[in-house]
């Protein structure tokens, strides 16, 4: 097993990884920017090394400086967390070339699955159902119109390199397709340096459901069940839960099997998430994309399966075989995660960084809070606005919602605006309670009422 791991990330996930390392008896080296000197992970780390200035480009995205820190601290492995360099196959390769283990999949698997068009091709080959549409980037307007007419409007235009809702457009006819394609390409070029877009059937009433998988270096891949992340605002997940309250056991089983199939097709190991869109009308699911890293919402899966995904990632990276088989995975109860962000949710969710003057997180049976914040901590303006992830685990969904309502009411935080009030209102909405939510509901209905 590794002796010392470098955590190439910040915020709550850095603390999350650090705690598991400590539990496993592994030393930690936390790298950080000058803006993050006061973050909790830096305070808790065995070694903390400043790698650059506040803006991520010079620090958390600075491969040279991270590798330099890794050699200085003499670490065995690097955990990339999520975001930043976590899905950068070049970084993974550089790390491995330095004889340091990258805690994640092979660079080749990341490349095969990280690009949406490539991933879709692979999924099609592996027999995993995909949304009907172009199998690769469209060459231009004419091809786009031809494909759109074949699969029927409305269609979705998506940047192949995109993510988080950027470079996405819905078109309802030829005219909006042409203008949407131009806009999406322009946006994708600006955001990702790659203008390629694909076109596919647009699912009107969709749930976002994803499968957590984990694989070892011995060819074993296991599905750890699904997370339903349909409550989104502008394609940003707000609430995640498991199990999904809208799918049947059969669909759940097929989704899991398909996710494993896709991962095996890519020679995938370590943790990954296969995202599906579930069409509420057709009651069918389609492969969306794969995230080749740990995700923000992984605690939901940990709670229902009573396991530590970060520990599993570390173990399989060290070459250990998975300690369970597919038939051992039997999720229990219902878990829900909400993201507490420093945002003014009543003012278009605008980021509200600043100093947290008072901070008491809820606690108790079935309540879990993953956070790097504390009273006196100043949320720097350079990064995302996440304060904490609040996760509850109840016997069933109603029980989990009760716990969540209590936990939110016990969250005592002063100094910055947060999304706590949003979640309190959301979870009392009968449509949320009764699972009538689609991925568009927050934008189209909830925020407009």
């Amino acid at each position, binding site marked *: 097993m590794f002796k010392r791991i470098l955590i190439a990330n910040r915020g709550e996930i850095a603390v999350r990884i650090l705690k598991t390392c400590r539990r496993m008896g592994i030393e930690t080296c936390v*790298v950080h920017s*000058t803006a993050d000197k006061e973050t909790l992970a830096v305070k808790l780390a065995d070694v903390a*090394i*400043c*790698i*650059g*200035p506040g803006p991520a480009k010079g*620090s958390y995205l600075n491969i*040279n*400086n991270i*590798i*330099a*820190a890794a*050699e*200085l601290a003499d670490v065995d492995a690097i955990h990339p967390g999520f975001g930043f360099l976590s899905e950068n196959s070049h970084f993974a390769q550089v790390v491995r070339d*330095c004889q340091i283990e990258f805690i994640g999949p092979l660079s080749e698997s990341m490349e095969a699955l990280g690009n949406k068009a490539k991933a879709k091709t692979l999924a099609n080959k592996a027999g995993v159902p995909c949304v009907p549409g172009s199998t690769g980037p469209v060459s231009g307007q004419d091809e786009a119109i031809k494909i759109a007419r074949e699969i029927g409007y409305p269609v979705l235009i998506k940047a192949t390199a995109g993510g988080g809702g950027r470079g996405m457009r819905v078109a309802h006819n030829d005219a909006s397709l042409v203008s949407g394609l131009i806009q999406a390409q322009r946006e994708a070029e600006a955001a990702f340096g790659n203008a390629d877009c694909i076109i596919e059937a647009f699912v009107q009433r969709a749930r976002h459901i994803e499968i957590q998988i984990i694989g070892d270096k011995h060819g074993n891949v296991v599905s750890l069940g699904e997370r339903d992340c349909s409550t989104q605002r502008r394609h940003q997940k707000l609430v995640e839960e498991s199990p999904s309250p809208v799918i049947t056991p059969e669909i759940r089983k097929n989704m899991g099997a398909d996710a494993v199939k896709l991962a095996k097709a890519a020679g995938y190991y370590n943790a990954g998430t296969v995202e599906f869109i579930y069409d509420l009308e057709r009651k069918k699911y389609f492969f969306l994309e794969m995230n080749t890293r740990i995700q923000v919402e992984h605690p939901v899966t940990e709670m229902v399966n009573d396991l530590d995904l970060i520990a599993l990632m570390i173990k399989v990276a060290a070459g250990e075989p998975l300690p369970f088989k597919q038939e051992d995975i039997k999720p229990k109860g219902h878990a829900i995660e909400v993201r507490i962000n420093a945002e003014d949710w009543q003012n278009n969710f605008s980021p509200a960084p600043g100093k947290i003057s008072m901070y008491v997180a809820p606690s108790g049976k079935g309540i879990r809070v993953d956070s790097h914040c504390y009273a006196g901590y100043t949320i720097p303006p350079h990064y995302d606005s996440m304060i904490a992830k609040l996760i509850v685990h109840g016997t069933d969904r109603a029980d989990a919602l009760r716990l969540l309502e209590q936990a939110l009411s016990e969250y005592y935080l002063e100094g910055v605006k947060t999304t706590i009030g949003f979640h309190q209102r959301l979870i009392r909405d009968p449509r949320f309670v009764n699972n009538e939510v689609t991925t568009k509901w927050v934008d189209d209905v909830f925020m407009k009422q």
Partner: protein
Amino acid sequence: MDIKVLKEITKIMKDNDLIEVEVEAKDLKIKLRKAAACAPVPALVQAVAAAAAPVAAPALAAAPAAPTKNADEANWKQITSPIPGTVYLKPNPDAANFVAEGTAVDAAKVVCLIEAMKVFNEIKPDAGITGQIKRICVKDGQAVEYGTVLFLVG
């Protein structure tokens, strides 16, 4: 006005933790401001005395390096490490140091090496940092991180 007055005023400022002083003689106008205890004093306030020349702001050394000792030091510039690594003050174990206190430096002058990823990176002052090495803040072979102050130049 005598420069001594200025010195005395700055001493009063220092002794009393004042961050702002305004004096207007002939029929007297005085304005004093003290640092608020808790607030992160934002404005680097500049003390101005009467009609006389402006007094330099008591700049705080940004880095956790050595504490400033005299008024001159406030004007020294820092050469910091751009990367985590190991500092070498000489090109090889048998050679002399790249620089010593008093050595003149500019953006073309190698002041030390920082070994990172088996590569010895030549460190030169940023453009605009010229003058003499006033202090060497690191030891040969010392591990540094991004932002560690290596040299002071004045």
